[in-house]
């Protein structure tokens, strides 16, 4: 077993030699409802947070100012984002 970075709730790994599995890079924040890998991305001129939805492979990069905005997001706005029809399953 090749062990990659340990997440706070989860360890990610794959069998040695397996080439058909995408190895998520980073630490995993996971519950029974969602599974998200997070890591710092230093490819740009400033560091960003790379966030990957492990259930779909969709990736988003969040810069410092975007993260600060999330920290200051009002409870009502966050609740709106949790409504499945708000964006992802709008129809």
């Amino acid at each position, binding site marked *: 077993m090749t062990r990659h970075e340990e997440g706070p709730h989860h360890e990610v790994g794959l069998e040695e030699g397996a080439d058909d599995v995408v190895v998520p890079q980073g630490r995993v924040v996971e*519950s*029974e*409802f969602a599974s998200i890998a997070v890591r710092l991305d230093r490819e740009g001129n400033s560091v960003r947070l790379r966030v990957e939805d492990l259930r779909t492979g969709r990736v988003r990069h969040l810069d410092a100012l975007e993260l600060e905005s999330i920290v200051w997001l009002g*409870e009502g706005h966050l609740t709106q984002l*949790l*409504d*499945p*029809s708000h964006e*992802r*399953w709008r129809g």
Partner: protein
Amino acid sequence: MTAVVPSASEVEEGGSRYDRLIQPARVHGTLYTDPSIYAEELRKIWHRTWVFVGHESEVPQPNDYVRKQLADQDVVMTRDKDGEVHLLINRCAHRGLQVCDDQAGNSSSFRCPYHGWTYRNTGELLGYPYNKGYGGKNQLPLGMGKVARVDSYQGFVFGSLAEDGPSLDEHLGAAKGEIDRLVGLSPEGRVALDAGWLRHRTRANWKFLAENETDGYHPQFVHGSIFGVTGSPIGALYSDNSTAVTRNLGDGHSENDLRPEFREFAEPMRWFGTTPDRVPSYVQAMKDAFGEDEANRRMIEGAPHVMIFPNLFIAEIQVFNIQPVGVGECVQYSTAVQIDGGHELNQRMVSQSIGSVGPAGMLLADDTEMYERNQRGVAMADPEWLDVRRGLVRESVDADGFTIGAATDETGMRGFWNHYKSLMEAEDR
């Protein structure tokens, strides 16, 4: 199975069904085997009265949740972002799916895996996918079900599925003082039940357990092996020579009060099978918190041994949560008490608990063998009755007005049956 109705020669005519089945000195075997009585118990006891569900320390952080059982109901105990504890029925308002599957987690919201309906951890419906099918957002007055009333005492969380009825304070009555005794062993005034729960499936009616918990007649027989191996002095406290008493605390609650014995010895920590020099940090913390005399009193008298109706058993160092599964099956959840500021005590609590009720423990396995043989025994036809008269000839009333018997008397069982009968004779709603 025994006959549903006792033969005419065995009982007097008249009275309620439970007048016939529950008598001062005996109870009928069908109380443990009749599926219709179990169905009635669900309606009149488990779905109505206050039932112990869990402890606030199991959800210490905002948005923590754990799955619990309230009789036949799968319940999610959550702590919301503001710190309030909720008991949700684990069922989606859309198609009735079980929403949470993990035994524990941390999430501000729960998303049903079937069609994506999403709930706040208070049960409120936050949204559903493709909302045009419902005429837009926020169109449905639905949410996860909730246990109608939730309340806690000293961190012990209870739920009642009935909208109204006695308050938790009224339900606990004198048993509150026993919970206070346990919490009073913490220099910080708090206990936690966060060491993890063992789950013991038991093929016996739940009432055998509730009755047995303060039956001081069985330990010398059933638990002879663990007393012998550990050299425990506890066994001797359950004999006719003991000054310990069995107390009917009212409301179905009862205790084995071992304090008279411990007061005679006047040795701090004897109740825990140790001496102050082996737990010095704890002893010092108790003295710092309460002063020398009061700390010594608490450490001499020790923890309670109390059965709180219908399903919370505090057995000194550990707590049991009894939940029925069917007329002939229940689950015993057990965990070690953890004392805030307990220092050396807490690890010992866990190891002693594992030794007594763990997978290879010697105490619960012996009791469970009796419960299951009891269940098989009452399925036999004759004799139809179980005898609960032990100690009737020597019962008395203590200074606080509670009925007490000797250490080995069935005073607690009779209190249990009195309360059980009053609940079962109440009208269906």
